[in-house]
């Protein structure tokens, strides 16, 4: 229809340049239109006869439009467009040969559909005008002679890499266009900007032909699972499992986490609407120390088309370290005792406490070395930074010297530790924190007043963020957990605090009788670390007012203390950009090395000892990165599929600075099972960005005609007249016809 009305295909208008071929200047055209409009206005006003109101104006507009159209045609409008010269250009045809193309849809596989499109008409049509180079691709492109060489068995799809390879191979050829036949299921996360930029620089249009349904009829697929890379032994972990489904809305499905085949968490969920992303958290215990490969899965549902996308694996390094927390308490109180008890029951934590029993005496507990900190609260970075977390109890701000206050700030900022400030009669506003440098660390605005500590039993409640937080998760089921908190005994006391600072997260509010609610438990990130305020010292009532078998107090405090330290970095920290190498071998190991004062070490000797899935060990030296002092990296190739553990050891002269673990896993052929629906968005975007066009398999026949319009390769410029388009005559007829009909109706003919 478009071509009937406008004479040429849409691509001509899309890619061509509009020109007026008449030699007269355009301003004369504009002047002519204005003059004609003026004359017609004068004429219509003078001869309006019985026409009243807006009717003369309508007649004037129709006549003016008609005159303007005629004048426009006199200026000879046309489209100037570059077209590929026949038989002088090369067209590269790339066919996706990955496993996802073997998916059967209807009576044919996607691969067979692509072969049929090419063999039936397209290859022959292209061959008449161009030299055609036929490729198949998976991880890389490979020349082929005919479509019968397609196997749909490549374990991965790398669209970007394959395109770059073809462009490089044809850099000396007059490549006029690329035709890409694929389902768009790319395993490398899409096509990077560099590749797009290279294609655009050479002005090569990439035309894409999409295969496969854009959504499955009956399928459930896990699209992601987010877990922490590192965890403390015995800690509670959350796996946020994201999935979507088609054809099972409203039904139930069982989501599970397995460690070495054993189910460690499972939950039945109700499935949301078709295609809607759905995220469900699953909580489980990290268990004993060591690297773990966890399988996150959804039990297959009846009639599922693809069951290979129902599970994926994630790696978690359950650390052997036992983080240490220093608890400085300014006065004996019940909270201290019960926090200590909670910590003593936690095998993965060590709580060292300093309690001011009298004005000048400090009672120390939980220190391995009886002489550690016997002189009092740390005054040197290496003393304080030996801990991973810090709890400041009911101690006035000025109990700490200026040096110690600076150290406490650096503890969170540079060392990356977690600091918890508790309520109490010498804490927060009562302890003069509002005017101290430590106020900056607090996630709440501390009022500049006294009388803010209240020994009144008070109710409290979780906020929405509190209900979602692992710190406050007493029971795995979120609903039951929320209900459990409503039956907790009141806290014995609280401190007034102001509003939470921007960026801070309020997990609990206190609801004092007859007063407005206030933040009770607030957390925030500070520098490399994190800080929190728990403005009470009255949770001991959770122990004394509940049965002795109840573990809510212990669980809460263990989780709060783990929050403080679980992300506190060691002096040597190791990481990899991606924990799962999907159909690739190259991995980059990163390490960050710091000394006892947590200052970067630029001259360390850093080695990675990597143990592969077959137990074979390799050592790689890591080199300093120019981007940052203390940062080191090494590239390595994982030759076999499976899990790898890299222990990174850093030293300086004869001193060992520390060691850390990074884990990663190479998986071959797994990613191809996911995202198997046609990625219409990716194919469409690739075509749009490069000046090509997306075609479905059904209308791919048009491609042979439209592909000629390209500025790459060897081209010639054509001018195509527009004055004789049927649409122009129709428009003229419409203008005159409308005027005639209106005049008849208004009786002025």
């Amino acid at each position, binding site marked *: 229809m478009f071509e009937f009305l406008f004479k040429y295909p849409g691509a001509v208008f899309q890619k061509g340049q509009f020109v007026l071929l008449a030699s007269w200047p355009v301003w004369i055209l504009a002047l002519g239109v204005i003059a004609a409009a003026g004359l017609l206005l004068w004429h219509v006003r003078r001869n309006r006869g019985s026409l009243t109101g807006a009717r003369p104006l309508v007649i004037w507009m129709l006549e003016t439009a008609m005159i303007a159209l005629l004048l426009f045609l006199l200026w000879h409008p046309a489209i100037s467009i570059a077209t590929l010269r026949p038989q002088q250009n090369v067209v590269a045809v790339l066919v996706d040969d990955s496993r996802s193309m073997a998916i059967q849809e209807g009576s044919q596989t996607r691969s067979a559909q692509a072969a049929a499109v090419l063999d039936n008409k397209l290859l022959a049509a292209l061959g008449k005008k161009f030299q055609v180079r036929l490729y198949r691709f998976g991880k890389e492109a490979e020349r082929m002679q005919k479509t019968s060489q397609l196997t749909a068995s490549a374990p991965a799809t790398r669209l970007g890499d394959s395109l770059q390879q073809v462009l490089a191979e044809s850099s000396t050829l007059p490549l006029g266009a690329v035709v890409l036949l694929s389902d768009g299921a790319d395993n490398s996360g899409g096509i990077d900007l560099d590749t797009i930029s290279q294609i655009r620089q050479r002005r090569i249009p990439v035309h894409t032909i999409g295969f496969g349904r854009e959504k499955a009829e009956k399928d459930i697929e896990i699209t992601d699972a987010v877990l922490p890379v590192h965890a403390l032994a015995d800690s509670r972990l959350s796996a946020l499992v994201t999935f979507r489904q088609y054809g099972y809305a409203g039904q139930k499905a069982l989501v599970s986490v397995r460690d070495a085949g054993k189910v460690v968490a499972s939950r039945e969920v109700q499935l949301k609407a078709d295609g809607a992303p759905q995220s469900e958290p699953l909580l489980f215990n990290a268990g004993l120390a060591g690297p773990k490969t966890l399988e996150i899965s959804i039990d297959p549902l009846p009639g599922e088309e693809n069951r290979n996308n129902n599970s994926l694996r994630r790696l978690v390094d359950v650390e052997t370290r036992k983080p240490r927390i220093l608890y400085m308490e*300014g006065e004996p*109180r019940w909270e201290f005792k019960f926090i200590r008890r909670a910590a003593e029951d936690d095998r993965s934590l060590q709580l060292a406490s300093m309690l*001011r029993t009298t004005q000048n005496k400090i009672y120390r507990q939980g220190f391995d070395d009886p002489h550690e900190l016997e002189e009092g609260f740390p005054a040197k970075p290496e003393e304080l930074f030996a801990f991973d977390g810090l709890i400041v109890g009911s101690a006035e701000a000025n109990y700490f010297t200026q040096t110690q206050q600076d150290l406490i700030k650096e503890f969170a900022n540079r060392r990356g530790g977690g600091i918890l400030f508790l309520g109490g009669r010498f804490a927060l506003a009562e302890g003069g924190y509002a005017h101290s440098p430590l106020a900056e660390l607090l996630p709440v605005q501390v009022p500049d007043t006294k009388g803010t500590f209240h*020994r009144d*039993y008070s109710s409290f409640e979780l906020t929405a963020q509190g209900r979602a937080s692992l710190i406050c998760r007493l029971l795995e089921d979120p609903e039951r957990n929320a209900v459990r908190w409503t039956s907790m005994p009141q806290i014995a006391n609280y401190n007034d605090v102001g509003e939470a600072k921007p960026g801070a997260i309020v997990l609990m509010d206190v609801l004092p009788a007859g007063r407005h609610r206030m933040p009770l438990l607030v957390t925030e990130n500070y520098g490399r670390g994190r800080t929190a305020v728990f403005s009470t010292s009255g949770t001991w009532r959770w*122990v*004394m007012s509940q049965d*002795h078998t109840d573990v809510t107090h212990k669980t809460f405090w263990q989780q709060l203390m783990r929050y403080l330290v679980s992300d506190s970095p060691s002096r040597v920290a190791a990481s990899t950009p991606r924990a799962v190498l999907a159909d690739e071998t190259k991995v980059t190991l990163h390490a960050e090395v710091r000394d006892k004062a947590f200052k970067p070490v630029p001259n360390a000797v850093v080695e990675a000892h990597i143990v592969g899935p077959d137990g074979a060990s390799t050592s790689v030296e890591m080199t300093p990165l120019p981007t940052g002092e203390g940062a080191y990296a090494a590239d390595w190739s994982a030759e076999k599929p499976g899990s790898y553990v890299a222990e990174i050891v850093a030293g300086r002269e004869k001193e060992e600075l520390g060691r850390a673990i990074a884990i990663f896993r190479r998986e071959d052929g797994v990613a191809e099972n996911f995202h198997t629906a046609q990625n219409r968005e990716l194919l469409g975007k690739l075509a749009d960005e490069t000046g090509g066009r997306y075609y479905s398999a059904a209308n791919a026949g048009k491609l042979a005609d439209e592909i000629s319009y390209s500025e790459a390769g060897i081209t010639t410029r054509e001018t195509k007249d527009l004055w004789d388009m049927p649409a122009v005559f129709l428009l003229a007829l419409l203008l005159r016809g409308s005027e005639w009909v209106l005049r008849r109706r208004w009786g002025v003919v």
Partner: protein
Amino acid sequence: MRRRLLIRGSLVAISVTALFALQATFREFPALEDDHVPVPPDAYEKTEWAFARLMYPSGKNASVFGRTGSWPTDYPKADRQFVQGVRRLTRIHTRSSEQVVDLDGDEVFNWPWLYAVEMGHSSFTDAQCAKLREYLLRGGFFMCDDFHGSGEWNVFLESIQRVFPDRPIVEIDNHDPIFHVLYDIGDRIQVPGIQYWYTGRIWEKDGKTPHWRAIYDDHGRVMVAICFNQDNGDAWEWADHPRYPERYTSQAYRMGINYIIYAMTH
């Protein structure tokens, strides 16, 4: 006199309880002994710690104490005099007045440190035994004081073994933190009651050897601290009396403070 005190204490208790329904506040009970001390002006202050005295029934063992039973022995002067020391010598936020609690309701759970005297005359009901057991297992601390000789020991044993039938009573080792948490009191002496004035003896009945015994929880923490053949209560009560030797009072204060700080740290 006693009746007036009882009425006054009750009225105060009712009015204050109406204000703070969740935690009982100070209430004065009739004393046994004739050494009354006035109610301190800040008796109703809300503090972290208060001297909680256990009001227990003496039952069949109450004959020598009359209907009230033995629980108010040395009360309230010993309590109020001791807490002055706690206030002066430690950073514990301490109430100037004592808190009398029983085992019939749940009020005891608001006071995690508990003191009882003359336990050689105690006679708990089954429900009270269960309540005391639960209190201790939750984390409460119980200091028993002022009972002497094998006869009173047997009465105490009968009561406490109904609380913990399967937990042994052991001598506290000198190295236990309870003797070192604030004051090092590895070397201890027998602390006598005021009978020492009249008899010159530091022991009562056949209790010539002082014992510092305990019942521990599963984590090795003292739950019940038993001061047997000694009278720390009298040492606190008569601390200001010229005839009562300072060395006994001094140890009683240090011992009591150590027990409190231990209870707040272990």
